[in-house]
């Protein structure tokens, strides 16, 4: 059976008891609940009306078409034969169990009992453990707990933060907004008082965190949706980049970073355009992989790499 057909079947069978205990639900809510379009819900409902325990009136599921067309709300009747939902499928249970395990790794200490309780009950209900696991990077527990505590109490945070790209260390006061993961790392997005702007901080680069007693000045819901960063790093026209020739041993950089393989033939090497958040990050990358990564452009970058290497060598030769 195709995945689309089985997904649809599972969804429609879940609707039958749900709509019986939630009479008059708007189609829009139903679409949001299931994460599909309103058109899809309407199609599902039209199929539901063709099904039942028999083929006569009273045996077929009945949906109030007047209410559906007039008010966009759903009244479902004559489905007494299915008052309860089906057991969770293995995939459904896996989805929730894996998500809970992921939450568990990112949670603060006082949130663990609720997660463990939910996990135990779900695993008990399906009688199996999901063959899926997630590994999040380890983060200093004290820092994570401080950040989460300030977040849930709505307190300002004092952070000491290290920026690897520019290699600097700074202290700043922030209003915490969200803690989330992106590409397998934990991040805090917050209103930074020093920058008077939204900033994103990687949790493992926060070297000290102190929860203050001061309530946040700009709560997250005061910010327009557009100000909350969705993805961390999408190259734009102003994003710094370098054109590099990679030896085969350095090809993995294409997978690890934002890079495009260019269509230029260079014998034995691969030419790529690689984006960085900052020119000094690109310089450090070229130095780190010297010999395996050759800078083609920009010229300043090639010059800076050589100048830095000469200055360092002088310290050893001298």
């Amino acid at each position, binding site marked *: 059976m195709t995945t689309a057909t089985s997904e649809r079947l599972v969804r429609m069978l879940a609707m039958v008891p749900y709509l019986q205990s939630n009479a008059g639900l708007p189609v829009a809510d139903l679409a949001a609940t299931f994460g599909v379009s309103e058109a899809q819900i309407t199609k599902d409902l039209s199929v539901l009306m063709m099904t039942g325990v028999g083929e006569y009136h009273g045996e077929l599921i009945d949906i109030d078409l007047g209410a559906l067309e007039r008010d966009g709300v759903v009244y479902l009747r004559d489905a007494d034969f299915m008052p309860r939902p089906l057991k969770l499928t293995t995939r459904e249970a896996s989805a929730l169990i894996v998500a809970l395990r992921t939450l568990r790794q990112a949670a603060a200490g006082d949130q663990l009992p609720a997660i463990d309780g939910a996990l135990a009950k779900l695993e008990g209900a399906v009688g199996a453990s999901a063959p899926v696991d997630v590994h999040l990077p380890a983060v200093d527990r004290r820092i994570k707990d401080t950040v989460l505590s300030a977040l849930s109490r709505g307190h300002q945070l004092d952070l000491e933060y290290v920026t690897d790209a520019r290699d600097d260390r700074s202290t700043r006061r922030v209003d915490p907004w969200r803690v989330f993961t992106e590409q397998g790392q934990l991040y805090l997005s917050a209103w930074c008082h020093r920058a008077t702007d939204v900033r994103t901080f990687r949790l493992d680069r926060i070297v000290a965190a102190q929860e203050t007693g001061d309530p946040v000045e700009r709560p997250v819901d005061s910010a327009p949706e557009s100000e909350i960063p969705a993805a961390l790093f999408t190259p734009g026209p102003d994003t710094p980049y370098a054109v590099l020739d990679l030896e085969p041993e350095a090809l993995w950089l294409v997978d690890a970073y934002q890079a495009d393989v260019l269509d230029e033939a260079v014998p034995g090497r691969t030419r790529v355009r690689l984006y960085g958040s900052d020119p000094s990050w690109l310089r450090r990358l070229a130095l780190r992989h010297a010999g395996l990564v050759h800078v083609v452009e920009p010229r300043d970058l090639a010059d800076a790499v050589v100048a830095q290497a000469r200055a360092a*060598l002088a310290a050893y030769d001298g």
Partner: protein
Amino acid sequence: MAQRKTERLMNLFFLLLASNQYLTKEQIRASIAEYRESGTAAFERKFERDKDELRELGIAIETGSRDAYFDDEVGYRIRRDDAELPDLSFTREEAAVIGLAAQVWDTAGLAGESATAVVKLKSIGVDIDTDAMRMVEPRLSAHEPAFDAVLTAATRRIPVGFGYRRADGTETHREVEPWGLISVRDRWYLGGYDRDRQAPRLFRLSRVTSEVSELGAPGSYEVPEGVNLRDLADALFPPPPTEAAVLRVRAGRAQSLRRTAERSEPVDEQTDRVFVRYASTRVLAGEVVSFGPDVIVESPESLREAVVARLRAAIEEAP
């Protein structure tokens, strides 16, 4: 076509669920229009396939004799207590974390499954109010085309074969008994028993280059007792540090090295001596070189040599 099939499967399910007794094949055929309108052979084919498809969804169809005295004809039914979700009670906080868990998956992944699971729980009266908890919001996605097939195979214990591109770019064909999937640094890996290598192996799903083909029936193998995917995944992480290095670092520079350093002490106004532990000379040499003249190796000699060699390589790039 798909729509008629969905309709037929739903009707078959409802019919078998609502019946208190075993229904014979003929009774089933008489009750569902599409079966009735098919020829006998076509009906048999459809009916067999439909039963399998319901079973794939975890719906157990029981077969038995309709009548204790005339056990010549087999009948079918679905037992309510097998099919239905039993009552589950969650605390307010537990229900809230389940609601938050359901938001973790992206549409490229198990978002649909999360949504239907939550609807089922709400249908049995679980009150999910996600505002009851403020937590980290992790995101899980699965953009790798092989994810679905491999998840199904791991769940149902079906051996699989696929084309696989190794790290050095060579193409291989692998036959694997899947044990499970693990996400590390936002990438999915399949862990399992590699039949050719006769050993446990980890495969990165983004390197699967073909369709995943099933090589056997569900339940073809057992997952060995005590298998832990995290132990397998340990191979993806740097080994624990065994070596010690002493570095001279310009004051206020090389923050990423200082963050993981054991300790540091000032040498003079401009310089600190920083003590770090490491596992790989190559990796630490790269880190040191990336800071240019801001970080100089004092010891050990092997690290110093690796750094100098890499700095010389950088200078050879001079135009």
